[in-house]
């Protein structure tokens, strides 16, 4: 079995340390190497953080910063040619999936996204990924290398005890003309909340009749010391809450100790976002709502009566 040479790409710098840790857990043999690759324009402290997470080498790509997928994948193609990795890891973010797919298409490599666990067996990669809209976990095998895998944010491994020292290496990449041009970048409304890190969440769904009733939910969240989450329709269709509150397949995956779902039916695409909550409380007026099958504590009732009572009891 030849040694693993794992490249972790900084398409989302905040995820790079986790990619490095997972890389180290996969390439645990002393002859294996984990190389962090910083795309052009990535802040300098990413190199230190990749080192601290256990990267054996850090390569900083030197070229004008760009978000054009063709420019970025061309740079990664050069990385693949020169570093000859056995595995390329990116974050399973929107941009990460785009890069993974495009790179895999350019070089005809095996690829998978939404990966939540990764191990080797002999020379093969075995991975778990979300399947069936998050309803299920698929275990998939990849024999051919290198492979490109996009790891779901939150996927991590313990830090190796020895952080290998050494400076970052600069690596100039040949410029290619972009295929797309960025005209404007607008920050999204909200965007401050990091709901995936919240310890307690009160999530509201379409059981809420109107936006003006949101303070009802916010009061309960305050009483519990919780953040407010929501289902897709409230963010995407109604726009009552910004996207950073949105939980589920197309929103955020959360891992709180306490998850209170209010007026949420519990569609599979929502469940995938809250499945790893420790304790789930559901309030719904429909005793047959699917969310109840995912609940530790079930309250059948009208949220307009239950929520104020909960707020009162938890405030005192």
């Amino acid at each position: 079995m030849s040694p693993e040479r794992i490249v972790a790409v900084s398409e989302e710098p905040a995820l790079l340390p986790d990619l490095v840790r997972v890389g180290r857990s996969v390439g645990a043999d002393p002859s294996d190497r984990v190389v962090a690759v910083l795309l052009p324009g990535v802040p300098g402290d990413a190199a230190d953080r990749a080192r601290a997470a256990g990267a054996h080498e850090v390569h900083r790509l030197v070229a004008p910063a760009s978000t054009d997928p063709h420019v970025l994948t061309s740079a990664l193609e050069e990385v693949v040619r020169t570093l000859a990795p056995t595995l390329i890891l990116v974050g399973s973010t929107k941009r990460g999936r785009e890069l993974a797919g495009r790179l895999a298409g350019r070089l005809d490599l095996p690829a998978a996204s939404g990966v939540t666990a990764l191990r080797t067996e002999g020379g093969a990669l075995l991975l778990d990924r979300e399947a069936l809209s998050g309803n299920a976990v698929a275990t998939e095998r990849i024999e051919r290398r290198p492979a490109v895998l996009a790891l779901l944010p939150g996927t991590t491994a313990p830090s190796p005890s020895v952080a290998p020292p050494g400076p970052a290496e600069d690596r100039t990449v040949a410029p290619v003309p972009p295929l797309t041009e960025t005209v404007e970048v607008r920050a999204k409304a909200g965007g401050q909340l990091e709901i995936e890190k919240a310890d307690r969440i009160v999530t509201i769904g379409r059981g809420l009749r109107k936006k003006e009733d949101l303070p009802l939910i916010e009061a309960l969240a305050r009483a519990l010391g919780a953040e407010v989450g929501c289902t897709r329709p409230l963010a995407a269709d109604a726009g009552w809450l910004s996207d950073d509150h949105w939980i589920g397949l197309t929103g955020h995956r959360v891992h709180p100790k306490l998850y209170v779902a209010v007026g949420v039916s519990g569609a599979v695409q929502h469940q995938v976002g809250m499945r790893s909550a420790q304790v789930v409380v559901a309030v719904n007026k429909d005793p047959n709502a699917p969310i109840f099958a995912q609940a530790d504590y079930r309250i059948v009732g009208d949220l307009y009566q239950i929520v104020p009572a909960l707020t009162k009891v938890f405030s005192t």
Partner: protein
Amino acid sequence: MAETLRIGVAVKHGVDVTLTRADRATGRVDLAGAPRKTSDFDKNAVEEAVRLREKHGGTVTAITVGGPAAREALREALAIGADEAVLVTAESWSTWDTRAVARLLAGAYRTLGGFDLFLVGEGSTDHFGGLVGPRMAGELGIAEVASVRKVTIEGRAVLAEKDLEKEVEVVRAKFPVVLTVGQEINTPRLPTFMANLKASKKEAKVLAPPDVGLAPDSLAPVVVVEKVAVPEIPRKQVALAGASAEEIAKGLREALRAEGLVP
């Protein structure tokens, strides 16, 4: 004469995730016989393609890769308003992975003479990989814009709004370009009775892998699914009832105290 707009759309006939059930004893899901339906975002893709054609003229060609039942996805695309339908198929279709699908779509793209715009779902309802569109664009060496929520055509280029986690990036891309779209881009129309009837009468063009320049053995999967299982998450399922909302609330407080979650 102005060049007419050629739009392609990829539609998948995937597993209906709301109807799949795991075997109680093993927790495994048998996908072979699972009920299927047209992938949700692909209907948004067809709708967007049809709206662009309604505005700018041209043609919309829907392409699916799959087995005989995938004709249903084509029928739905035609009912929404696609002009042409193409089925790429072979006996071995059920073994095809994302790579094979992207290669076949790229092959069909070339065989059919190329498209100005090619719309793909941002993720399929069952697989939700989000790799097919970028993979196909990479294979063809053409531009792509993923996660598009708004698109306008300006001459021989698109202006597309790319919806990222924390920002919206407005991107201009010259034709040809692959766009991946999500649910937020539009609300697909409900086809009329007549549109459905007309769609079910229209024949799809059928292409085999060699027709699109691919030897069947070049499509063997490189990512092999070993099993699909539904993880069992034990939940206590305690029903909290009481004579009043306040009594129920107190019951929950006791329960959460016992869990060590509230003082």
